[in-house]
């Protein structure tokens, strides 16, 4: 069931367009990530939904009710900000309690909710600390507990992990997902980090220039991107030219493949090949030369300079990559198990 519906939302700041015809439907209980490069409008979309900015045009429905004119305090959303937004004059417990007090929830019930929030966010040791006595990760856990304590209709997270270091970011990311599944709250998570988005989202909305380019599951985004922007934005891509064969198959690097979506009009297209779909054969007459080999654990990333295709990125099982040396001549081909390919028109790609 759709709980949040934003239709045709437009917003400009002076001459710069932040959102142009932004439309999205979010289902109850799902975690949506809005992903895109800086300035794509993802935070503006969230702030408009929260009521902190006013849209120039468009409609916003929550449970089929128009909320465009409701002030932030009447929308019933919980929000976590990028900056630690804890109230410095209050302890963790008082911060969590704040929203409940504002909603005039009675003493016993309020205490019970705060205790439960402290318990599920594992903040028992820090409950009576002030924000300046806590680490960044602990502060964001308090901010999260504070946002969900008021039982929000929708939880809004505006780049909540970007101020944290890598290790804390990863563990808090998993904690957010665990909590979200535990309490089943519909969540919109804004991030510019695609790994973060792909790791926790039910669906990811990729934005560019104030528009939602595609809203799909992480796997679908990766395997069947709707356009070349998404293909290049999500993960790493190599592009090769593809020729249409008479049997409507496409030939890429001498291999015949079926087109997954959007077969381009005309006889020539660009094929998106992911690094893990590439195989390298060491051959003295190979066109490519290995430039770098980076060991990444289970896999190794190999960059090959090819006179025709430029720099090609290949991810190989580390055991296979161990046979390769920098400077080896290699032939580049598509792995045997790859049968389908994503194509874009030449003019677009």
């Amino acid at each position, binding site marked *: 069931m759709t709980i949040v519906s934003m239709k045709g939302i437009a917003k400009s700041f002076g001459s710069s367009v932040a959102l142009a015809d932004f439309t999205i439907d979010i289902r109850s209980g799902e975690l949506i990530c809005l992903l895109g490069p800086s300035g794509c409008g993802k935070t503006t979309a969230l702030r408009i939904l*929260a009521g*902190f900015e006013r849209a120039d045009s468009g409609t916003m429905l929550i449970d089929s009710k128009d909320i465009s004119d409701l*002030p*932030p305090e009447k929308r019933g*959303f919980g929000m976590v900000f990028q900056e630690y937004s804890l109230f410095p004059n209050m302890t963790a417990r008082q911060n969590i309690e704040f929203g409940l007090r*504002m*909603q005039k929830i009675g003493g016993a019930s309020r205490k019970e909710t705060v205790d439960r929030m402290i318990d599920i966010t594992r903040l028992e040791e820090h409950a009576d600390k002030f924000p*300046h006595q806590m680490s960044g990760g602990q502060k964001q856990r308090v901010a999260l507990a504070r946002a969900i304590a*008021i039982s929000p209709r929708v939880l809004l997270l505006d780049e909540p992990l970007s101020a944290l270091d890598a290790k804390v970011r990863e563990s808090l990311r998993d904690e957010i997902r665990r909590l979200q599944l535990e309490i089943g709250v519909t969540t919109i998570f804004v991030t510019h980090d695609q790994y973060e988005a792909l790791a926790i989202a039910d669906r990811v909305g990729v934005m560019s220039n104030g528009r939602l380019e595609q809203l799909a599951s992480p796997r679908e985004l990766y395997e069947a991107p709707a356009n070349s922007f998404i293909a290049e934005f999500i993960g790493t891509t190599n592009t090769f030219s593809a020729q249409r064969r008479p049997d409507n198959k496409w030939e890429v690097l001498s291999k015949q493949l079926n087109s997954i979506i959007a077969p381009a009009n005309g006889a020539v297209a660009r094929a998106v090949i992911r690094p893990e779909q590439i195989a390298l054969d060491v051959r003295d007459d190979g066109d490519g030369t290995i430039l770098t080999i980076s060991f990444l654990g289970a896999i190794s990333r190999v960059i090959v300079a090819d006179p025709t295709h430029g720099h090609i990125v290949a991810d190989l099982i580390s055991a296979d990559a161990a046979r390769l040396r920098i400077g080896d001549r290699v032939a580049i081909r598509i792995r045997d198990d790859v049968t389908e390919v994503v194509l874009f028109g030449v003019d677009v790609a």
Partner: protein
Amino acid sequence: MTSQAAAQKRSHIFRAAFLILIAGYFALPLLAMARFAFQNVPMALLTPEKLLTGWSAAGLQTALTDPQIISATWTSIQIVVLSIILNLVILVPLAIVTEVRNPALRPIITALTLLPWVIPPIALVVGVAATFRIAAPWFLASNLSLVPFYALWAMPFTYRLLDAGLRAINARTLYEAARGMGASFPAVMLRVILPNMRSSMIASAALTTALVLGEFAFASLLLKSTLPTEMVTFERSDPRGGLALALFVMVFTAVILGLVVRAMRRRGLTFHASGV
């Protein structure tokens, strides 16, 4: 010794010499002032043997018991308190609304708050006096008519302190976080923003105090009897006592400011005074 270590040592010596020079620049006049105020030995007769003779706090005692000085001190204290209140009543809401609602206006407001320093006291006093002498003569008759001048005069310092304090606590995000949780505008102000502005408000008050206790031009031009103007009058009849009093007021103000800062640090509050 390597040439790098020698260069480092030279740099240390240069820095120490520079610091001693600067310290001397500030300390020597004060020491000379203290000697004159508390040692009753003329400079021409001062020999090493007489360095420890003739010291007395009688001049300060006379000054502190002078009825005119006591009355002027009381007036100045009233002016300090009222100036702090007026300054904060005007500037706290202005700074909050600018930061939270219209951050784009900040450069304009910051520039406007500098205006009191662009206009010299004589122009301000003459202009205001000419206006009020006709419209509200009772206003200029009272000693407290200095309060608006001092509130205005302190504005460039205090606005910057309040603005820096608001930015340091990320007031806009705190405001939005609180509103998002259902708090009304007054509730956000009373429970979130104002409690977190304590340090910048105390710092503003301390600066206003220092400014008022040292201000002479406005009070003299408006013929008001405040501590600084009375100190000058007193000094004319009793130079030693006058200087002793001036030194006392200066040390007293510095100690009060130091205690305020210490008390704030103990409570985990710090000054956020970038741009001041």
